[in-house]
């Protein structure tokens, strides 16, 4: 790492941080994937986590996933909250016995010295009602700041994980703010250059935060979104039904396209929720509908080749 030019160093640039984590996990043997090309609420939704966590096959992967949480938009005015941000996701199946050490070494790689900082594993059990998933683990604290989520998946899409996968999720902006010593996310140095060449996180994303906040809270076309939700739900069911190779339902041939529609429905629901057009009681039923899709996709996936058939 010492051979890195200054602008590539993880404590100097946002992209340097990402590259360092990618290199670290690539070196461990992970498949380094690119982000999934759909809108998702978290890195967990990427089929490389949700679906690959199921079934008996080994699977080690890492990737950056842009995550959208329409409700968290603050028109670019809050120093920490964003409706679009990046997660760095690592999934290791089965969870290796030294997974905590691997994680701590990854922190060391990005410049967090465990002899200098107070690193802690604080109970935080993870549950995703829309994915029908849960696991036990921790928030990882560095000097009182939560920098990662660490979860041993027990169940995903309603299916027991066998074997269990370990999931690490780094909040990249927070981590970058920490190692760069910056208090406002938009002040992050993105490209590691200084002076006229410097590009900040704000240069890249501030306008987007403002525009999407307007969209998410005020202007998104709710009639269209309600329609889209129904269509995605319908399509998901249709693909799931059509994907079985025979009436015996021994093999499924379209789990991935069906799951895309589940992701779609989930994001559309988040947009509707941000607009405040879903009442408290309806909210539960929407979450349940997405969960039913996720469960059916999980069931289909375990009947595919990658799912272990």
């Amino acid at each position, binding site marked *: 790492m010492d051979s890195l030019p200054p602008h590539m160093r993880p404590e100097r640039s946002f992209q340097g941080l990402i590259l360092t984590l990618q290199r670290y996990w690539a070196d461990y043997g992970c498949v380094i994937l690119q982000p999934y090309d759909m809108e998702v609420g978290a890195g967990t939704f990427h089929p490389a986590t949700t679906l690959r966590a199921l079934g008996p096959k080994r699977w080690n992967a890492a990737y950056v996933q842009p995550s959208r949480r329409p409700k968290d938009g603050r028109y670019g005015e809050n120093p920490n909250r964003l409706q679009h941000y990046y997660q760095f996701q690592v999934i290791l199946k089965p969870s290796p016995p030294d997974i905590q050490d691997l994680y701590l070494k990854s922190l060391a790689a990005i410049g967090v010295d465990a002899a200098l900082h*107070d690193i802690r594993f604080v109970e935080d059990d993870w549950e995703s009602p829309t994915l029908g998933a849960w696991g036990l683990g921790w928030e990882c604290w560095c000097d009182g700041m939560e920098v990662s989520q660490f979860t041993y998946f027990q169940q995903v899409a309603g299916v027991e994980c066998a074997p269990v996968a370990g999931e690490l999720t780094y909040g990249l902006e927070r981590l970058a703010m920490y190692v760069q010593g910056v208090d406002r996310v938009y002040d992050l140095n993105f490209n590691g250059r200084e002076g006229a060449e410097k590009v900040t996180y704000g240069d890249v994303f501030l306008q987007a935060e403002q525009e999407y906040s307007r969209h998410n809270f005020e202007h998104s076309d709710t009639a269209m979104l309600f329609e889209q939700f129904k269509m995605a739900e319908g399509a998901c069911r249709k693909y799931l039904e059509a994907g079985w190779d025979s009436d015996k339902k021994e093999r499924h041939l379209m789990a991935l396209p069906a799951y895309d529609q589940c992701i779609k429905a989930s994001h559309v629901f988040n947009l509707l929720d941000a607009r405040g057009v879903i009442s408290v009681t309806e909210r539960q039923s929407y979450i349940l509908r997405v969960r039913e899709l996720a469960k059916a996709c999980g069931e289909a996936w375990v009947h595919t080749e990658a799912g272990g058939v």
Partner: protein
Amino acid sequence: MPDLLLELFSEEIPARMQAKAADDLRKMVTDKLVAEGLVYEGAKAFATPRRLALTVHGIPARQPDLKDERKGPKVGAPDAAVQGFLKATGLKSLDEAKIQKDPKKGDFYIALIEKTGRPAIDVIAEILPVIVRTFPWPKSMRWGERSAKPGALQWVRPLHSIIATFGMETEDPDVVAFDVAGIEAGQVTRGHRFMAPAEFSVRRFEDYEAKLFDAKVVLDSQRRKDIILADAKELAFAQGYELVEDQVLLDEVSGLVEWPVVLMGSFDEDFLSIPGEVIRATIRNNQKCFVVNDPKTGKLANRFILVANIEASDGGKAIVAGNERVIRARLSDAKFFYDTDLKTKLEDRLPKFEQIVFHEKLGTQAERIARIERLAAEIAPLVVPTAQGAEKEKLVEKAKRAARLAKADLLTEVVGEFPEVQGLMGKYYAQTQGEDASVAQAIEDHYKPQGPNDRVPSDPVAIAVALADKIDTLVGFWAIDEKPTGSKDPYALRRAALGVIRLVVENEKRVGLQQRFAFAAEELLSVGTSHPIMDRNKLPFDLLSFFADRLKVQLRDQGARHDLVDAVFALGGQDDLLMVVRRVEALGKFLDTDDGKNLLAGTKRASNILAIEEKKDKRAFDGAPDASLYKDDTEAALAFMIAAVKSEASIAVANEDFTFAMSAMAKLRPAVDAFFDKVKVNDDDPKVRENRLKLLNEIRAATRAVADFSKIQD
């Protein structure tokens, strides 16, 4: 005798589970030892974030030998019975059995089973894996390769190693040989995750604890707590501050570190414009740090105390700086929430309550608030009975205003973030928007008292709203038949009832409850529920008997006699709790006197005789006795005293002077005693007998002016 050392070393155990886990481990192991005949001398269990440990000392090296005699079938019994006997006792043939002579019933076989005790270490090796596999974690998980197969070990977080050694102090102990899910018990552990990660070997508890300490692990959580508390106090004191002690936080923090290092940080003084409780909630809940006071002002200072898990190479500078940044961001959020909240008046938030369901059968929050407002207006004049005219109107208006605004802070950002400051924030927002001081205070206090140790509000407005809130809750859940049962009380109705009792009794307020219950039930029918509710004529009585029970519990906790509560409630119509309590007190004192005891005995005697004779004659003996039938002087004297005492006691009761009523009762005693001494109730002349029974009935009736003596235990 040998000792056992056990350590279960895992990834980080949630702080909130550690204490119970240590206790469970001790109990499970020692219970099993005792069940196996291994009676030990002592045991102690420990928990840190990464380990559960147990030492049991003074375990016998072997189980005691057991001798058992088992009776078998008769000599000559059918073969099936014989085979069953052999199988059950483990004998090879009947030759190994003894024959017991029995001339009456016939000879039968007896098996003498001698079981030699096994070495304790073998028994322990069988016990421990079972305990690990069945350990009662509130939540447990699977992990790693082995989780692919069914029946994989479950633990709170991945379990990495086990120490189990057994042996005498003077010798090298043996490793208890067992394995669980591929983890073999041994005698190796590790120290602090960062400061002493190397493996090391231990022999027994003494060197285990000492070596851990050298490896930067304080095993005993109480010791960690002591260190944190002492260091935090000292650090605060050295800088001229005073630690705000917080036991719950201390318990939690001590479960997050193996090697506590206490440090102090600061935040911008500007944040002190946020209410102190919010600062504390932010710093405590999110950052698990302590706050400190400035002893000169008694208010929060812009400092906080954090507990790190490491002696950092720079003395903690980076750790403090990092925590300061997080706290700054958190306080910025809190300040933003607070400032945002201040922009909206409390009443402007109310329409939103129309969309929020309080309980599906009890309508919306808006409906509930409307009910509480009307009930508070109804109760307020009872709280200050002397208030008349304009003063009374003003009081009622304040109570209504406070009731209307009391719940509004539930919709604020700060309370959304920190539910524990509900009420308190409402008070601050009310003060800022210029509400009357009692109205603002009532908003905070209407939730009180929350339990037996919580403060009871004393301002009349607060009392009225607090009572209205609780009575609406009680009547509501009573109406839809969601009463507490056994240990289940999801809506905290027992606490609400106790709250009503304390509000009324400690403030010495006269509030007839049945009428309020009826009023609240009517309100519920008009606003809030379209669901069928419990018979509204029955509800006030049913709920009142719940109060009688709560009052009994309350008095019993205070060491008073709860049977006296029954004796008073049995009079009927007793729904003024203050009067009930006063009467119980006076009655208790009276019964401590000789007069009281004897009168009670006399009254009971009268009651018993009456009960028998009433049954015999199948009639009651009520009505005035006939003076012309008195044969003995004591009869006339008793009749005279009854009449005198009755009127005196009734007047005293009407004046609510129960002590005086009791002393009036005392005068009855000599007359009753003399009557029973001299007179035979069941006289041969039926008319005289009837007249005397009527007199007895009069005694009973007279005492009912103060209590139903038949409910009092001797």
